[in-house]
């Protein structure tokens, strides 16, 4: 078994705001992140897959194809976007890093071949804050 990681990045605006709560409660719970006019981040995305190395190619998976899948199903939909407003697969979700990592997993998982398992989505919201999701 080998683990392979592709690092990508995108940037986006968002806010943390629960529409079921009033403005005061949102500000108490989410602080500055609740700013109505949005704020934003440079997200760094680590996609780790795992599996056996194919004898013929020496590859676990062609990283160029992995890169294209991430681009098509994740980056093209998130980069330079407003996560709360522009992204279909985040609709009605709180746009936290936790939920974003899970949503990225769900975007990629169906498009990987059977022999390759998605192992981890690691997502940095800032250089000092990141989450990891292993699909369970």
């Amino acid at each position, binding site marked *: 078994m080998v683990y392979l990681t592709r690092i990508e990045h995108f940037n986006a*605006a*968002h806010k943390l705001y629960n529409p079921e709560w009033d403005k005061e409660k949102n500000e108490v719970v989410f602080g500055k992140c609740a*700013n109505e006019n*949005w*704020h934003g*981040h*440079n997200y760094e995305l680590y996609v780790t897959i795992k599996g056996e190395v194919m004898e013929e190619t020496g590859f676990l998976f062609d990283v160029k194809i992995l890169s294209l899948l991430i681009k098509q199903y994740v980056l093209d939909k998130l980069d330079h*976007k407003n996560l709360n407003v*522009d992204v279909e697969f985040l609709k009605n979700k709180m746009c936290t890093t936790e939920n974003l990592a899970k949503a990225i997993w769900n975007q990629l998982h169906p498009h990987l071949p059977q022999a390759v398992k998605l192992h981890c989505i690691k997502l940095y919201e*800032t250089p000092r804050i990141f989450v990891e999701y292993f699909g369970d």
Partner: protein
Amino acid sequence: MINKVSVYRKEHFNAAHRLNNASWDAAKNETVFGKCNNPSYHGHNYEMEVKVTGVPDIETGFVIDLKMLSDTINDHVIEKLDHKNLNLDIPEFSKLNPTAENIVIVIYNILREKLNSDLELQVRLYETPRNFVEYPVT
């Protein structure tokens, strides 16, 4: 010989923005600014390096007390810009495009006013880990 030394303080903030020239139509804005023109904004983790140059004080050995520099940056720059929408929340950008170039000039002007005029000041601003600007040019 004057023994000048540069000292640096790194700080960070994050913000939303968009690049748009109000005197152009949507098509031209999109051609020039591409994805950065998205009407619903996008955002960045900005990292800044503030460089202060001067002769260390004989009594303290400091060019500037770095705690004081940190407080000045936090009180006048970070508090103002962090978790904000640069286009909507910051008066300086109501008519000025919030490019990294213009943001670094705004930050420099804010800090320049607060620091002793004997000290030289230069600000480097990272918009992403790969894109950064510096002002003033020496």
